[in-house]
């Protein structure tokens, strides 16, 4: 709010002084006194006298008055007429729309100053001409804003309801629509006033705006130019006044816009550009060495209310050539865990604890440059939405070739040829032609194949696929999963598959990790876990989605937000078996190759 009050106070002060000009003990701003021309100081004139011996301070304040009068008058006229035209155009559509909206748009074909000069030629300079020109210039802004708002308001239920009650059009417009567009119109008013002050002073400076001897900042600067050597202050005062006024108005505009957009307030979370890593809490594991060994991985994000942990003490092992699935509902932290392992966390998040060893080397504590060389090389990732994850402005073949050349010194032509071969490898027909396509020219399934081609370009040992089929059609999903399974088999890579679909898990994975609210709640071999789920959450998931393609349904409620986690078992509020014992945090217990985080698992599985 401070961003709003400070400029608002300055603008308010300027407006107040200008409004009170006739009441202030000022000298007559137009009375000339040739004897005191360019005097730096005369009693009663603390800022001195101008080239005609007129009092500078008085002219400055009266100048503000004429600038602001023109600015507010033209903004008000434009606001009233423009909003009315926009309302009518948006309500009646058809011919009214064409005349009001497209008609006003022709104003935008002219550079503003030029249009103003054209009108001044016809009507002669003066305050009236200025107000007319400026209102015309700002008309399109108001028409567009109110037109767009009416169109969106028309479809809303409450407007439909009032309409159905038989209210007449003018009444609906005034009572229901107008209050809703007040915010955007206010933003336009502030923009128009600020811009009008600039244009008015510019035209007055050219001698084509306010007519002398009426004081105006633009005219004062114009007049002081001739004597700038003898009396530079004469030039500096109006320049300063004008600049401060416009600066305060611009800042106010930004603040008003933020408030009207309702985006202001809390502000973005504080950024940490350097990932400071805590020393590992766990000793190195005994051989045999797994491909990927994650232990105690914890991710923290600083938010205005404190620190949240979207991933809390995650651990799992993956051997080469095998598939591990991480399942859970949206918000369980599975994607965040994957980006942490890859070193791709968003700037606000950081790894607070844990290790993630790829072939024995800790990814989390390695310098960023060394990790960058592994990314896209020894480890690769396929993302959920293949449309947004490909760069729309580069050809897909180039994007694949780029992945190759980031890790291997090969000539561009060879990289392109390899890219085509990779596209063919992932099952894209006519790869030579497709390589020259842009992402938007391909289907969703084809884009995901491109993403996969990019990921396997350097024969990674580890591939992490984050919901690779969620954005795709059901028929395409199966094909992509088959492709991933085939690649894993043939290239011998380890695959971490993140999904919310238990059907997918059953089909392709050997091991499964079930996550809920940042924690592992159950972990083990897929056949074992599916045959004998120990955690009530896993049971509920299995019961809810017999053939899972969609998000699990049937479990009441949603995953709580990271700042609202219950103190004990995090699933307790949604759990059918919760008791008083669930109010203390349950530990993760190991049972015959399976792990479960539930105090009651023994009695429940009995």
């Amino acid at each position: 709010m401070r961003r709003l009050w400070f400029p608002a106070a300055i603008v308010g002060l300027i407006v107040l002084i200008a409004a009170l000009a006739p009441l202030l003990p000022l000298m007559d701003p137009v009375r000339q006194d040739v004897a005191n021309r360019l005097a730096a100081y005369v009693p009663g004139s603390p800022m001195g006298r101008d080239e005609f011996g007129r009092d500078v301070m008085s002219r400055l304040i009266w100048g503000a008055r004429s600038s602001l009068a023109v600015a507010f008058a033209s903004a008000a006229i434009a606001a009233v007429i423009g909003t009315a035209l926009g309302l009518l155009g948006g309500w009646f559509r058809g011919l009214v729309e064409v005349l009001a909206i497209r008609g006003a748009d022709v104003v935008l074909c002219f550079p503003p100053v030029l249009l103003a000069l054209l009108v001044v030629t016809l009507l002669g300079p003066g305050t009236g001409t200025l107000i007319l020109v400026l209102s015309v210039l700002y008309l399109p802004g108001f028409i567009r804003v109110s037109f767009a708002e009416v169109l969106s308001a028309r479809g809303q239920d409450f407007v439909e309801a009032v309409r159905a009650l038989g209210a007449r059009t003018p009444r609906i417009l005034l009572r229901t629509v107008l209050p809703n567009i007040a915010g955007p119109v206010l933003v336009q008013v502030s923009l128009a006033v600020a811009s009008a002050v600039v244009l008015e002073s510019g035209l007055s400076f050219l001698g084509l705006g306010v007519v002398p001897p009426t004081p105006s900042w633009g005219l004062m600067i114009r007049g002081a130019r001739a004597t700038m050597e003898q009396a530079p202050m004469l030039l500096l005062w109006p320049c300063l006044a004008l600049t401060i006024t416009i600066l305060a108005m611009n800042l106010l505009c930004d603040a008003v816009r933020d408030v009207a957009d309702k985006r202001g307030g809390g502000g973005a979370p504080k950024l940490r550009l350097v990932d400071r890593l805590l020393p590992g809490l766990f000793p190195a594991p005994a051989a045999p060495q797994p491909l990927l060994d994650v232990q105690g991985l914890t991710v923290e994000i600083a938010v205005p209310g404190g620190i949240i942990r979207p991933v809390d003490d995650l651990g799992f092992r993956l051997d080469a050539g095998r598939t591990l699935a991480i399942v859970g509902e949206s918000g369980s932290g599975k994607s965040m865990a994957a980006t942490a392992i890859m070193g791709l966390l968003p700037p606000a998040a950081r790894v607070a604890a844990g290790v993630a060893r790829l072939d024995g080397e800790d990814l989390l504590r390695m310098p960023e440059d060394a990790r960058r060389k592994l990314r896209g090389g020894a480890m690769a990732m396929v993302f959920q939405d293949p449309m947004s994850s490909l760069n729309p402005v580069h050809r897909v073949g180039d994007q694949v070739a780029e992945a190759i050349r980031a890790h291997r010194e090969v000539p561009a032509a060879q990289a392109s040829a390899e890219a085509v071969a990779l596209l063919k490898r992932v099952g894209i027909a006519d790869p030579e032609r497709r390589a020259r396509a842009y992402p938007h020219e391909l289907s969703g399934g084809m884009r995901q194949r491109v993403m996969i081609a990019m990921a396997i370009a350097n024969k990674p040992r580890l591939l992490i696929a984050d919901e690779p089929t969620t954005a795709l059609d059901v028929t395409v999903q199966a094909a992509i999963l088959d492709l991933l399974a085939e690649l894993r088999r043939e290239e011998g890579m380890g695959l971490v598959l993140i999904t919310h679909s238990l059907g997918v898990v059953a089909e392709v994975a050997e091991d499964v990790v079930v996550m809920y609210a940042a924690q592992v709640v159950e972990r083990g071999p897929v056949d074992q876990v599916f045959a004998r789920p120990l955690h009530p959450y896993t049971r509920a998931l299995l019961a809810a989605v017999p053939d899972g393609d969609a998000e699990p349904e049937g479990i009441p409620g949603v995953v709580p937000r990271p700042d609202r986690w219950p103190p004990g078992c995090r699933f307790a509020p949604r759990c059918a078996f919760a008791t008083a014992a669930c109010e203390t945090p349950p530990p993760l217990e190991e049972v015959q190759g399976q792990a479960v985080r539930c105090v009651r698992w023994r009695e429940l599985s009995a």
Partner: protein
Amino acid sequence: MWWLAKRIGLSLLLMWVVATIVFLALHMVPGDPAEMLLSTGGAMPDAYAIQELRERLGLNRPILEQYGAFLLGLTRGDLGTSLVDDYPVAAEIALRLPRTLELIVAGTLLAVAIALPAGTFAAVRQGGAFDRTASALAAVLQAVPVFVLGTLLILVLAQWLRWMPAGGYTPFADDPVRHLVLLSLPAIAVAKGLAATIFRMTRASVLDALSRDHVRTARAKGLTPQRVLRRHVVRNALIPVTTVLGLQMGTLLGGTVLVEYVFNWPGLSTPLLRAVEARDYPMVVGIVITVSGLFLLINLAMDLIYAALDPRITRS
């Protein structure tokens, strides 16, 4: 290609709209336009002079005939003659337009060369010392009106420090060095508003691009940070910047009028202002149509750049 043809067609249509508005403006004036143009300071103009001006402007002919003759003249590049000295308007514009264009090009290049890297750097180091300094400077620059900046540049650099001449013009062929020295201050003044806008827009747009999924993909490939920035952030961020640049051109052209006046740069603004003061309507119309045409042309060029940057435009 079809897209290009449509876009050029739209520009021509808008040009026709501009010409029509300018033509109609004279006739929308309440009362007799000739009387209006001749009246200065409330004195009733001479009836004979009014009649003569009506002849000159063709106001006695039927309005459609006037309109037809006006459009026909435009297509032939005939903009009529000045009311003051009978000099052909088109010849005056042909002499002065290149100088205005030079100023616009120099100012735009300067603005882009400074603001684009600065905006990118500020976004990459968001919240850092450079970002805060440059953002504050951009806000102040945006608030200083172009004629204030120009006047202050003259006061400080020409009057106080005596490093630069206060203004003027020397043809490039006569003295290239002096020509460029004289060009520098007006070019800085023209560049200031544009630079502030490009800086703010680039910063916002790069920040937005940095958080996109495809940037994460690029990092997941193991590309160096520099390459991610150049190919996957800045390249994409340029697209919205181009749009805003196009919208800003109207303000830029208006600002050029003021800058030329402040620095005595003999472009289109001198005859324009002289003509506005003398109510020399044909000259004003000629220059307004030329500059508006320039505005539409720049916007067309912006759209072409936009299409070159964003393959989704032309191909879908």
